């Protein structure tokens, strides 16, 4: 028991929030020690959906592990694919054509928007508002249709290949993406009028659920959670990869650290992602989408490689150790939600149950990515 819990030695009771609970969005279980409706101690219990992705990586060829990456975070699968292909390309020394990198960025950013839209709906649902969820799904559907037309699937894409992408975009994709951006630009003010400016929502999010920058550093929180606490860190800007340095975009940072700050970071990121997609479409070069000399059977040189990408939830790092054979020797995944959830126990101490659940919703949890 923590020191805070011991000072509250009175009549507490334990409540198991999950693994089947509407607010945990999956099979997360949080053991809460409660004093009335006040949380004395919270301990996330993980492992209900653990699938040993890291061990699986050691047992299959480099290419066979590719679909696994998309199944960790099914909401922003393309960024996870991106991280894995980039690190393997670096290990194997494969040059990627520029057009392929542009297509990767366009699709990954569209995927980021769809992830943020789903989070927006689910978060408002956590706060008891049902309708925005379906509006957000309506918009997300447009992205999924677009991505389906190029990648062939709607959720776990596995679209990138070592050396490029599987398939060139068709002639309908670019006009479709531009039409979607135009549509979302018109819809975002509606979301802000309906949800962001709503007085009930503001009282539930403002000045509640503080996460300090120290907490973020202590637990390794990244992404919108850290940026909502005033830490200006985004892998796309600070450790640039792919063709992100070519684009002009801002990193939304809100210093306050309350639930509203994290909400605003994500809403602003939707706009920034739209800017990136627009610029990438304007600059999209011609050429092949697959490296001509990409080997069929991959045997990267011996070595230890690490690469991080910015996903919708934060920094996803992937470390591969190659011993020169056709399977990885070791594969380590550093998933952002795991770190972001770790601070929940400290951040929610002394909070009321509904506020703690609002805080949990603002962390944007994807459970299969925590357990891997």
């Amino acid at each position, binding site marked *: 028991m923590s020191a805070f819990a011991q000072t509250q030695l009175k009549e507490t*009771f334990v*409540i198991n929030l999950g693994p089947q*609970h*509407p*607010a945990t969005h999956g099979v997360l279980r949080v053991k809460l020690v409660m004093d*009335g*409706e006040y949380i004395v101690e919270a301990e996330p219990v993980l492992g209900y959906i653990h699938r040993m992705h890291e061990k699986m990586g050691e047992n299959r060829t480099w290419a066979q592990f590719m679909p696994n990456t998309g199944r960790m975070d099914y909401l922003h699968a393309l960024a996870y694919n991106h991280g894995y292909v980039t690190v393997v390309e670096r290990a194997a020394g494969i040059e990627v054509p520029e057009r392929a990198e542009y297509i990767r960025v366009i699709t990954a950013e569209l995927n980021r928007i769809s992830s943020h839209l789903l989070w927006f709906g689910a978060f*408002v*649902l*956590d*706060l*008891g*508002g*049902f*309708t925005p969820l*379906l*509006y957000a799904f*309506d918009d997300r559907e447009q992205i999924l249709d677009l991505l389906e037309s190029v990648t062939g699937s709607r959720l776990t894409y596995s679209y990138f290949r070592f050396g490029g992408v599987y398939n060139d975009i068709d002639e309908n994709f670019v006009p479709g993406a531009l039409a979607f951006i135009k549509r979302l630009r018109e819809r975002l003010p509606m979301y802000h009028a*309906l*949800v962001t400016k*709503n007085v*009930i*929502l503001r*009282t*539930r999010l403002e000045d509640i659920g503080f996460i300090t920058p120290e907490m973020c550093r202590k637990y390794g929180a990244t992404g919108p959670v850290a940026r909502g606490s005033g830490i200006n860190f985004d892998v796309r800007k600070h450790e640039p990869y792919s063709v992100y340095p070519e684009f002009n975009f801002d990193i939304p940072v809100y210093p306050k650290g309350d639930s509203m700050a994290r909400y605003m970071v994500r809403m602003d990121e939707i706009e920034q992602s739209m800017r990136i997609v627009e610029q990438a479409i304007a600059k999209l070069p011609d050429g092949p989408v697959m490296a001509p000399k990409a080997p069929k059977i991959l045997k990267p040189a011996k070595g230890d490689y690490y690469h991080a990408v910015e996903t919708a939830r934060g920094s996803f790092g992937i470390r591969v150790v190659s011993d020169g054979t056709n399977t990885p020797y070791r594969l380590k995944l550093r998933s952002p939600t795991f770190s972001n959830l770790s601070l929940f126990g400290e951040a929610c101490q002394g909070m*009321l*149950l*509904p*506020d703690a*659940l609002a805080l949990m919703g603002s962390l944007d949890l994807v459970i299969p990515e925590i357990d891997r």
Partner: protein
Amino acid sequence: MSVHPEVIRLLIFLVGIIAFAALNAAYLVWLERKEAGHIQRRIGPKEVGPFGLLQPLADGIKLMTKQLIVPAGVDPVLFRIAPILVMIPAIMGFVTIPFSETLVARNLDIGLLAVFAFASVNVLGLLMGAWGSRNKYAVISAARVVSQNVAYEIPMLVTVVSLVMVSHTMNLTKIVGQQLGGFWHWNIFNFAASPLMPVAFLIFFVCMLAETNRAPFDMAEAESELIAGAFTEYPGMGFGVFFMAEYANIVIGCSMATILFLGGWDCPFGLYPGVHWFLLKMYFLIFTVIWIRWTYPRTTFYGLLNLSWKILIPISFVNLLLTSAMLKVF
């Protein structure tokens, strides 16, 4: 042997009231789902019957065929008695409500008092059901329900008291009788009694939402926090009865708002007063209640209590003082 005609009349009214309450409970669920559907840009129920009109029937059959599990560890008496204790007062509330000048089961001189007395039993039923469930979520919900209802009954009743002062009677038929003859006679626009009358109506409406545990004040059943709150352990029709009682209470709440503020069966411009005007106004209010639910997120529990103790109660007392002063002066 002859039966007293009053007994037959009462029996007919009793059957009619129960039918009215049950029909409303069933079809308000349909209306809610349909309205929510259109607010969310989808169709809503459409498969069972034309426009999904048989959906409530299908839901009812489904709920009734489910086994009534009484979980191990619950208090068997409280657990079984609670749904009944919620449903019966909800139906009793209809007894004194005048739907038109003649359409009233019992025209009591304390009709107003009777409705609010029955309405407050509802809390007890919810508390017993939640407490008897021995479920932690239900117990949290029970604590919320009680403090919520205590907090919101005060501004509601203070507003009603100021209306009783204006109309000098607690007989609901007489209260409507004083508002007849066009919308400028309605209590909501009775500026001679108190310039704050529209505000009083708003307070009454908000309190009614809170009393019936409707969003954005649905603390008792906050599904993203407490799963199903007080009803977590209830299976099948046990849950169904709670659900029906909730809708019956909404009907009573909106009927009271119609009677007290919107002139009951009076026509806004003096044409053909009658029960149809009453139903029109009542269903418009119910429509608004559902509309609010599907637009706003849920408040927090302390936000709810703050709203009552810091805003609604002071305003309703100001309204009470103002009304008594105006009555004394004019």
